[in-house]
Each structure stands twice: as structure tokens, then as C-alpha cells.
């Protein structure tokens, strides 16, 4: 109990004094995970829509890959991305190992299937005749996709929240491809693990509280967007 109390005090202290190291780590976490989520949405939502609506041979296999991707252990992703980015790896010439870019790449690989999978489910839940009706109204293919995405807004925002949640909380891949380098690739999760391994439990709890607050702030904003203008169904 004392450690938890210590942790809470630490968290308050870090935030109140605007501890520069904590701020730096927090902003890096937000930038890296935010960027990864953004790219995942740009890849995942169109992919999910296409998978939900098109019919082509191998579609079901592709969807099963996406679903498997949702359950990929982040640490496995980290390992495989490392193998690609190492100097001795095929992409070694890029020299981006141990940079925030590498973390963004690994986190995108983790989040994109999550976003795509939820999108497929969300679009799949729409009335099948709706696509037909919109086509009859004169929607071109892209207009149709856009309208369906709007109709499935609830599910797609859930997809984004899930994607962000998956990456802001992961530590295995971030450690492996980022290296937890102070001032460069140290994020809230890797910092927490490091402090724990040093035995600094109070500080670790403090940092984890900052992480929770960050995750909550972002999720809260997205939830507001998701629920904007919605009437609770049961009230009618």
C-alpha cells in the first residue's frame, strides 16, 4: 500500500513540477503512438471497407490474416521489425533502427490490423441493402465507401480507440526497435519497465499514472467524437 501511495505522490510531483524528463517522455509517447494510429487508420479503414464490400477469391483468407494480426503479440512484431531494420537486415541501409521512426513502424504494424479488423466488422454490420440503395442513388464507388464509413462511424471510432490503446500500452516492440534511449526513444511504457527493473517502484507507479492519464485523455476525446449527437436508444 505504501508503494502505491508513494507512486501517487510521485505522479503528482512529476506533473505539478512539470518535470522536464517526464514531459519529454510523455510528448514522445503521444507523438509516436499518435502517428502510428493515424497511419494505421489511413491504411486500416480503407482496407477494412474493401474487405467488407468486395468479393474476390482469397477474401476470406485475407480477412483471417487481418484477424490474426489483431492478436499478434507486440513483442513478436518488435522482433521481426528489428530483423528488417538491423544494419545486417534488408532495410539496414535506412539507418532507422533505434529511432522514433522505427517505433512508429512497429506500432503501425501492430495497430493497422486492429483498425482494419474492427472496420470489417463494423461495415459488415450495416444493412446489406444499404450499399445497394446508395449505389442506386448514384454513388460512385468512392462515394459509396465514404457514405458507409460515415454510417459505421460508431464502429470505426471504436476501431481507432482500440488501435491507439493497443500501441500506447505496448512495451515489447518499442523496447526492441527503439532501445529505450534517454531523450530519443524513451516512452512512458519503456520508462516504466526500466524503473521497475531498477527497483524504483514508486517512480514506476508514478510514470504509469501519467501514462494512464494520457491514455484516458485521448480516449475521452475520441469517445466524445464517437457519441456526438447520439440519442441513447432506450429513451425512446
Amino acid at each position, binding site marked *: 500500500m505504501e508503494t502505491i501511495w508513494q507512486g501517487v505522490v510521485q505522479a503528482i510531483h512529476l506533473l505539478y513540477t512539470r518535470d522536464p524528463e517526464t514531459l519529454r517522455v510523455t*510528448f514522445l509517447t*503521444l*507523438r*509516436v503512438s*499518435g*502517428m502510428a494510429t*493515424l497511419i494505421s487508420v489511413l491504411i486500416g479503414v480503407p482496407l477494412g471497407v474493401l474487405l467488407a464490400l468486395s468479393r474476390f477469391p482469397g477474401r476470406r483468407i485475407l480477412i483471417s490474416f487481418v484477424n490474426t494480426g489483431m492478436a499478434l503479440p507486440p513483442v513478436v512484431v518488435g522482433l521481426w521489425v528489428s530483423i528488417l531494420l*538491423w*544494419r*545486417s537486415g534488408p532495410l*539496414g541501409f535506412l*539507418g532507422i*533502427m*533505434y529511432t*522514433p*521512426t522505427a517505433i*512508429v513502424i512497429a506500432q503501425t504494424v501492430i495497430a493497422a490490423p486492429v483498425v482494419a479488423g474492427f472496420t470489417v466488422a463494423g461495415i459488415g454490420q450495416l444493412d446489406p441493402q444499404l450499399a445497394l440503395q446508395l449505389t442506386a442513388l448514384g454513388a460512385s464507388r468512392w462515394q459509396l465507401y465514404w457514405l458507409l464509413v460515415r454510417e459505421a462511424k460508431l464502429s470505426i471510432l471504436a476501431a481507432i480507440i482500440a488501435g491507439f490503446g493497443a500501441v500506447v500500452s505496448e512495451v515489447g516492440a518499442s523496447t526492441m526497435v527503439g*532501445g*529505450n*534511449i*534517454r531523450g*530519443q526513444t524513451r516512452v512512458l511504457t519503456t520508462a516504466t519497465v526500466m524503473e*521497475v*527493473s*531498477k*527497483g*524504483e*517502484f514508486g517512480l514506476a507507479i508514478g510514470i504509469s499514472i501519467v501514462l494512464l492519464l494520457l491514455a484516458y485523455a*485521448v480516449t475521452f*476525446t475520441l469517445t*466524445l*467524437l464517437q457519441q*456526438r449527437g447520439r440519442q441513447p436508444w432506450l429513451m425512446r
Partner: protein
Amino acid sequence: MRIRSLAAIILALLLTVGCTAKETKPEVPANPDVILATTTSTQDSGLLDVLLPIFEKDTGYKIKTIAVGTGQALAMGEKGEADVLLVHAPADEKKLVESGAAIERKLVAHNDFVVVGPKEDPAKVKGTKTAAEAMKKIAEAKAIFISRGDDSGTHKKEVSLWKTAAVKNEGQWYQQTGQGMGQTLNVANEKDGYTLTDRATFLSLQKNLQLEILLEGDAPLLNIYHVMLVNPAKFNKVNADGAKAFHNFLLSKEAQEAIGKFGVEKYGKPLFFPDGGKTEEQLTATK
């Protein structure tokens, strides 16, 4: 409306991922990034947090410290994934030099390992004269011993001590955490067990632990740190200039003094002993 501006702020932050403000440095070298592979215990001691800023300010190089297990650090050297290594596993380091993957292996500093355990000392380690003797007593008493079990420098030292003591480290009493020194000490603390630890980590965590130093000072307990350059002739992506600069820095008077002073203020004793210019043989001989 508020949501729109919040979204705008978030978007703005995201766009700055690539752009980091650069503080004005002296002459920034062509390739400023130097990858230093070292061990978690080295980083956790805090020594690098003192040394690196000095080096970075003097030279304009930026050190990327990758603190991992000894095994991984050496493997990184073996594959040319790092530019310079700072580790403390002499036997394996020598193998790396023999294979040609590493060059310019030079002694930097040393500290020592100690055997710690519960105050009650059920295995009666206190009073033994050598580490081997202490390990023998622990095995015979089947007292709980927590090992790092992660192929780190500490773990390798521990294994060599069991060997010297000619006892088997097997059984319910011998438990491996596979984790860093801090974690392992915490586990030993929780279970009232014995463990082998480097003095620096122990001192920095002492305030949280109920363990005591029960054996110290025996020659085999020296924990010796060498710096090595990853061979640029073998791996052309290595930042040879940056690595050399760091290598020279560690052996420089400035760094060696800083090493010798490290920890004195906080713990009353130094955590490391600078050995720049000496060789390993000289060190073990004097003990």
C-alpha cells in the same frame, strides 16, 4: 467546437514527430550517432548518465545507449549492430576479439560483486573467506538462492563460482528470474534469499532492501569493465570515428576522474574504480 481545436492540437503535435529541436552544438560531426551496446546493470548504476553528457558536449556526438543483457550486447557486437561496446564479461569479450569482430579492447574500470543475503544468514555465509566457500555453504544448506539466469556478466560470474565450489546449483532452492539485477534483488528480498550482485546496484537499492552484504573482497569477485570497438574493417556501417572518440574519452583523464568520484557523494564510497591504462592481468595480480 472544443473538440475541433483539441483535434487540431493533437494533429500539430503529431506533425512534429520528425522535427526535434536541435540545441546548438560545437562542430556537429558528419555522422553524430554512435550506438553504444552496454549492459542493464551498467546503465542502472547511473554512471553513464554522468559520463555521456560530458562526452556529448565536448565532441558533438550523440550516444545511443542500448542497455540490454550481456549476451545481447555481445551479439550486437558480433553482428556489427553497434559501434562500441562497454561490457563486463572478460571470457566472452576475449572470444569476440579472437573472432575479429571487436578490436582495441581496453580496461576501463572495475567494481566488485558481493554475496548478499538475509540478516539471519541460515547458511552461515558470514565468516567464510572465499566466494566458493560461501556458495558451497548455500548449496549444502539448500538455502534459497536467486539467480539472474539471463547470461549476463553477473550470471556468468555466478555460474563460474558454482563451478569453482564444485557444487550443483539445482533444486527447489535455486531460482532463476531471467531479469535484471534490480528485479532479482527485489525477488531475493521478498523471499529472504541469497544472491550475487554487483555492489553498485546493491548500494543504490539498499534503502528498499532488508538484505545485507555477507561476503566481499575475494579476488574472483572482481567485476571488470572493458571498452571495445566494433571492427569497422569487418562491418562497414560502423561509425568508426564516433566509436573511437568515445573509446578515447573513456580512457581520458576527465572520464577516469569522473568514474572515480561517482557515487561518493550519495553512498559515501565510490561505486567504480578507474583502471584506465592498466591491463586485466595487472588487476587480478594485485589482488
